[in-house]
């Protein structure tokens, strides 16, 4: 069969049910097969390749399955790059198929030629250029394996057009064995033992959980570890939902916009246990001031993350779930051997005291809509169970702080790359992946204008995404920095010139609602969330609201500004 058909058959073998894509000359053989086999692999035609990658990412983040995107050569591939970089930064398993000019034209500056393997080398986990049609099936097998194993990430397969036209026998490899790629899953037993010794003895421990714990499916184990050892637990922006927000041991999110009590707990801890987190600069603030009194246990499947920013005292390379299971077993052993868990009453009292001193706050001002209240109301009306996908900006941080995520894969956002335009298409991917569940895209007026082309997509396929625009007429996060760090010089952050979002949605055939007063928020949200199919809800919020606390860039955690 021809290469294009091999691709479709290979996707079936991988259990792929949905792909997001956009056609063009170099992938027309593939598209010629795609709509003949749509009974088993459904293709969603996005309206921009970036949307295909964000949708594939949202699909993967909401399920743990590998997302798949298909785009054409040249501009198709370059349009996808932001989405690929996003998947790379947030370790999202995605396989991207790009078209390429025919083999004999490569290097010729041919029409719609771009060196896509070259361009994406530094933002993929790995990429391939298919040079013989016989290699196509084994390459796809390897790509799915690499994307989804170890530290997950995007893998790109560049397919010259002739590779999809030429014929070969279809044989899909059953197993895979790469001498150059063998992720370590099991933690070193000696390190696990040392880690548990420290965890038992610590008087002021903090468990610090990141997106890696979600990728590994370690949430149950993490909760058991926290409960067993009585560990206050904080999640990173990427890790929210790994540990239930309502749990008595939950400290919420740490870092630049983390809670005061959370950052103070980290700053004053004597032991920081990191599971699948990478000590990002948005988490640590000024490095040499970070958790200076703490010993560091760092569990990560990627050795290069360990001691990259903060030197680990007990490094453990391995899969978060496997390692935490090992830890739980070791805890039992040590408790049986007569070890005791140190008394932490004073530590919990101290944390409570910090929380009493400076909780998250929001000063209501009559009928002005406060964005924080919108998020709280969203939580209430969805019972805290919606899948929420945020764009990038202030609204993202309020959602992270206030929605209260109880489950992993419930919170989607672009954490590492911080790519505006992510929120809405990612929600679309999540809604495709988890039909029947409430999916809400919380977006800013700026970011939505980078992605609203996908309104046509959700209408075409009746994807029931609820879009909640936090409209402040500003690139709010930029404005906040300008207010706080640039003497209120609001240079190019005012975006009041914008479409009427309600009319815009209606132009696409999407139902739309708007609230301009605080008293309308509940009704609009309730009506929008209950309606069938896609709905857009616009909240015209207080224009100059700020996100607090905020750790200024480059400052230490404890230097956060409280508001």
């Amino acid at each position, binding site marked *: 069969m021809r290469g294009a058909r091999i691709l479709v058959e290979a996707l079936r073998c991988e259990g792929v049910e949905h792909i997001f894509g956009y056609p063009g000359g170099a992938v027309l053989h593939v598209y010629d097969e795609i709509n003949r086999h749509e009974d088993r692999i459904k293709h969603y035609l996005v309206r921009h390749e970036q949307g295909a990658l964000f949708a594939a990412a949202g699909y993967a983040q909401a399920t743990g399955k590998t997302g798949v995107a298909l785009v054409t050569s040249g501009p198709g591939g370059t349009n996808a790059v932001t989405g690929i970089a996003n998947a790379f930064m947030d370790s999202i398993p995605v396989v991207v198929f790009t078209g390429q000019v025919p083999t004999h034209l490569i290097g010729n500056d041919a029409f719609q030629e771009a060196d896509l*393997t*070259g361009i994406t*080398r*530094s933002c993929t*986990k*790995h990429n391939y*250029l298919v*040079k013989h049609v016989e290699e196509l099936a084994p390459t796809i097998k390897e790509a799915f394996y*690499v994307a989804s194993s*170890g*530290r997950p990430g995007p893998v790109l397969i560049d397919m010259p057009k002739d590779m999809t036209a030429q014929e070969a026998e279809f044989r899909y490899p059953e197993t895979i064995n*790469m*001498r*150059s*790629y*063998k*992720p*370590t899953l099991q933690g*070193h037993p*000696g*390190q696990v033992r040392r880690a548990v010794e420290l965890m038992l003895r610590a008087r002021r421990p903090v468990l610090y959980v990141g997106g890696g714990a979600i990728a590994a499916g370690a949430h149950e184990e993490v909760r058991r570890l926290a409960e067993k050892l009585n560990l206050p637990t904080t999640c990173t922006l990427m890790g929210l939902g790994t540990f239930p927000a309502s749990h008595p041991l939950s400290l919420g999110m740490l870092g630049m916009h983390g809670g005061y009590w959370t950052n103070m707990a980290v700053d004053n801890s004597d032991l920081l246990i990191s599971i699948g987190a990478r000590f990002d600069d948005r988490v640590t603030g000024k490095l040499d001031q970070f958790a200076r009194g703490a010993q560091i246990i760092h569990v990560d*499947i*990627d*050795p*290069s993350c*360990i*001691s*990259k920013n903060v030197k*680990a005292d007990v*490094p453990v*390379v391995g899969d978060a779930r496997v390692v935490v299971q090992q830890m739980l077993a070791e805890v039992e052993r040590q408790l049986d051997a007569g070890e005791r868990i140190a008394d932490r009453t004073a530590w919990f009292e101290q944390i409570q005291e910090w929380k009493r001193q400076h909780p998250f706050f929001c000063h209501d001002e009559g009928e002005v809509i406060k964005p924080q209240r919108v998020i709280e109301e969203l939580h209430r009306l969805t019972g805290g169970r919606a899948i929420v996908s945020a764009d990038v900006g202030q609204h993202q941080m309020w959602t992270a702080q206030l929605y209260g995520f109880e489950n992993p894969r419930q919170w989607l956002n672009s954490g590492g790359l911080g790519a505006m335009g992510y929120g809405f298409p990612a929600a679309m991917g999540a809604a495709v992946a988890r039909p029947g569940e409430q999916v809400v895209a919380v977006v800013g007026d700026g970011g939505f204008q980078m992605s609203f082309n996908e309104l046509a997509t959700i209408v075409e396929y009746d994807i029931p995404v609820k879009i909640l625009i936090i409209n402040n007429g500003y690139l709010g996060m930029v404005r906040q920095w300008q207010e706080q760090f640039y003497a209120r010089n609001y240079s190019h952050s005012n975006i009041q010139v914008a479409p009427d979002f309600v009319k815009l949605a209606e132009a696409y055939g999407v139902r739309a609602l708007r609230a301009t007063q605080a008293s309308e928020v509940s009704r609009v949200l309730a009506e929008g969330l209950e309606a069938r199919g896609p709905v857009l809800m616009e909240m015209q919020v207080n224009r100059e609201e700020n996100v607090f606390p905020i750790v200024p860039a480059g400052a230490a955690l404890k230097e956060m500004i409280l508001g």
Partner: protein
Amino acid sequence: MRHTISLLVEDEYGMLPRIAGLFSARGYSIDTLCVGPTLEEGISRMTLTTHGNDKIIEQIIKQLRKLVKVIKVTDLTERAHVEREMVMLTVNAEMGAHRQEVFNLVEIFRAKIVDVSPDSFIVEMTGNAEKVQAFIELLKPIGIREMVRTGTVAMTRVAATRQQPKGNEETFSQLTLNEKV
């Protein structure tokens, strides 16, 4: 500190830019780089020298190991190993004193004259980086017209490969370095 790192990689399309790109993207520098085949078909050896503090070197090694098609990364610096570079030099060698001086240096450094003309020689020399540099410095006063120098290639000494790792408790770097993602 200068480090010599030896890599075994799959002999695949685009390996060199993957390695080079890793260094440039993360702001590390490659001082020298040599690539060649190994006895096993499909596997290439790259030997590179770089410099940086311990933290940087640790990151370089970990990041190299993380590349999906890199099979093995060895930092030879701390093991007993042999390093060689080769240099070819066109040097002034007019009839008379200079010609004899070049002969003497060639003899002392166990170099080789591989091409002769009435007023110059092409000299070939191999040795470790310091020896090569010393040779070059001594020839400079006589006059070097052109120089071509390879990067370093290196090999672990046989005795060293038989040594057992010291102690039972693995060191931190072994623990986090001996793994791939």
